[in-house]
């Protein structure tokens, strides 16, 4: 599974190794390692005590009922939660051995390496070319030739090149939903990331478009580590190598729902012989 084309970029972020991070860094193939991770929005604890290892070159699916904090966990991987002023994180989260939330880590740099695809396709109101070239441009690539190459490579990689190569200067908002989502994947790829985070990427798409995205994910697995949040258990079973099942615990007093990681294992194991009763209830459709 381990990719050969992905260079060892991202192995170190440009900070001094903190002691905690050094201690946490272990096997080379662990991309993200969360230990006792809790995320708060103000006083509200959205998820608590998550321990998880995301491995290189795999697709990891985060599943669970609504409000169980799986998107919150995903968004903490590339510090998207920073955009919410009240969001706060406890515990340890490392990316290739580096503490992601170390004060010296630049979230912008993190997001350049850890691309994200969102629930609803969110093309910029610009041309297809400008959309895909957005990341490289802000990264400082100005040469037209170089941008052309990147755009073509990214769109090809996202299985969209053949459909749009003749209308690169057309507005991206004019494409179909499935095409838009693949373009968003191309846009994420264009920044040459190490990891792709996908937050329910197919929930706004029809089954055919969904199937294409799923094919694409399996194809992309060769080069990228992928973490996907999905509501669709069949999708998790079809595409992922490992599955993490989250559920929400309701506090008896405050009635707040806090997400917990119930089970994390190989997908085949989770779906055939789940260790936890709650997981079994969920995947057999008895709950959630």
């Amino acid at each position, binding site marked *: 599974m381990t990719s050969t084309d992905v260079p060892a970029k991202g192995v170190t972020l440009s900070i001094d190794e903190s002691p905690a991070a050094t201690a946490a860094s272990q096997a080379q193939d662990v991309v993200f390692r969360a230990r006792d991770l809790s995320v708060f929005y103000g006083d509200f604890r959205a998820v608590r005590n998550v321990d998880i290892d995301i491995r290189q070159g795999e697709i990891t699916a985060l599943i669970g009922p609504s409000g169980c904090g799986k998107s919150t966990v995903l968004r903490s991987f*590339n510090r*998207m939660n920073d*955009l919410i*002023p009240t969001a706060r994180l406890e515990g340890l989260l490392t990316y290739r051995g580096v503490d992601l939330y170390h004060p010296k880590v630049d979230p*912008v*740099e993190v*997001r*350049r*390496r850890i*691309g*994200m*695809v*969102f629930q*609803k396709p*969110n*093309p*910029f*109101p610009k041309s297809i070319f400008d959309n895909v070239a*957005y*990341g490289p441009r*802000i*990264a400082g690539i100005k040469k037209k030739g170089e941008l052309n190459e990147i755009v073509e490579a990214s769109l090809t990689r996202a299985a969209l090149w053949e459909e749009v190569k003749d209308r690169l200067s057309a*507005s991206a*908002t004019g494409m179909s939903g499935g095409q838009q989502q693949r373009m*968003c994947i191309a*846009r*994420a790829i*264009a*920044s040459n990331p190490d990891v792709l985070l996908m937050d329910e990427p197919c929930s706004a798409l029809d089954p055919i478009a969904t199937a294409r995205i799923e094919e694409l994910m399996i194809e992309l697995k060769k080069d990228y580590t992928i973490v996907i949040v999905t509501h669709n258990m069949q999708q998790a079973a079809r595409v992922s190598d490992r599955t993490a099942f989250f559920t929400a615990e309701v506090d008896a007093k405050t009635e707040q729902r806090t997400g917990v990681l119930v089970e994390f294992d190989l997908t085949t194991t989770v779906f055939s012989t789940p260790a936890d009763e709650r997981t079994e209830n969920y995947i057999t459709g008895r709950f959630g």
Partner: protein
Amino acid sequence: MAFASIGDIDVAARVEETIKRRGADKKVVASIWTSLAGAGGVLAIVAMFVTWYSDDRTATAWFSGFLPPIALLLVVSAAAVLVAKPLRIVGADRRVDSDLFAFVVIGGGALLMMLRQLSRGGLSDMVYLLIIPLVAWTFSVVRALGRPNRSTRLELEQVALGLAAIGAGLIVVKRLLDPEYATGGWAWGLLAGLAVVAAALAACQYLGILSIFQVTLFVALALSVIILVILLVQVIGDGWPVLSERLGDFWSGTLRSRSGDERLGISQGILGSFWIAGFVVMIAFPIGIAAAVYLEEYAPRNRFTTMLDIIVRNLAGVPSVVYGLLGLFLFVKGTVVTHWIIDRVNSVWASIFDEEQLIEVGQSTLFAGGVTLAILVLPIVIITAAEAVRAVPQSLREGAYGVGATKWEVIRSQVLPFAAPGILTGTLLALARAVGEAAPLILVGAITGRLAPRDSMFSGVDQFFGQFADRFTAMPIVIVGWVRNSGVDSGFGPAAGAAIVMLLVFVIMMNSVAVLLRNYFEKKRA
């Protein structure tokens, strides 16, 4: 023949075809006729007000020069469409849209009239210049009103048409019989009433309004339009003697103490308003937009920023006179700080241009007026720009952050372009408001009487900047001054009317630019 072979004909298809054709015909006829009826109604309203409000002289100028040609055009174009349709030159199944055809006929007719007027010795009274935009405007408005699924019923249409045709026809006939056109009397009132009813029916028809409730709502909407029409007619009527006889001189003339003076005009007012607009653009726009971006994108949500928000909103509602007082104290009378600044500026000025001083302490300057109005509209700019920024979808921001954009990159490449149409609309409305304000300018000392102009603002850097330290006036001030004087010298009344028309044209031009720019940016973000 057709009857003989009826057994072979697919009756259903035939019926369908007929229905389709009828539908198409009806639509075209309806839109043309109702357009003309609407135009006739507008015409009649204009005629009515002119009759009621103008003196003999004005009325003659209007009726002999302006209305009959338009009425004639309407009738001719309607006839042209009627003839062209059976000949299958135009219609639903033809390339040429009937409305376009009628429009071309009207436009061509208007053009011919202008040419005729030109060959007769110039466009000195400018009347005919107004024909084309007016007709085009009427047409486009009526057509736009008719866009959403209109349900047409021919009977009402015909009633409307009949009434409007009577109205237009009467105008023409009366013109033929009575070239002098004395003031109206009951005939005109009746005519106008008929045409107004026709126009109202036509409008209701177009909008598919059939119930009383809908008619009531529509009347409520129409009231505002009617008020605008009354205002326009009144003002144009007032200013007509000036507009029709000496527009060119009026444009380039200056403030005078007597209305009989041939050099009476508004050039200083226009120039002052232009520079005030310039100050607003240079000061209020950048500061306002920057403040809005800060408030929406950077400011933390806490009590302090909430309070800021409330303060800004309240500032937008503060009476403009209060800003005038502020301007008076800050920029005219001056504080210790402003005096110190004035001294510095004057000493720099003296060292560069070898002139004594640029700004006199206690002097009302164009600078003071411009900056005061910039401050006046600043809250409006902030509020509208903040609304526009707030309306940018979060998903766009996330998308940009997701590929590693910094906050400023997100704002520059996503937020501002997306918010641009909204920001533009708000800021240009603010600009229009600034240009129309009189009260604060009176307080900061704009001049209503004579004003010695600079020789030329472009004759040198010192002249250019020097004008900002001069006494000044502006269009609203000119109007206020003339209206005030009209009690003593009645000739100032028409002058004031003409100045108001000019100010309206100025504002409408600015708003048009705003609309064009907004459309451009909207297209860009689609």
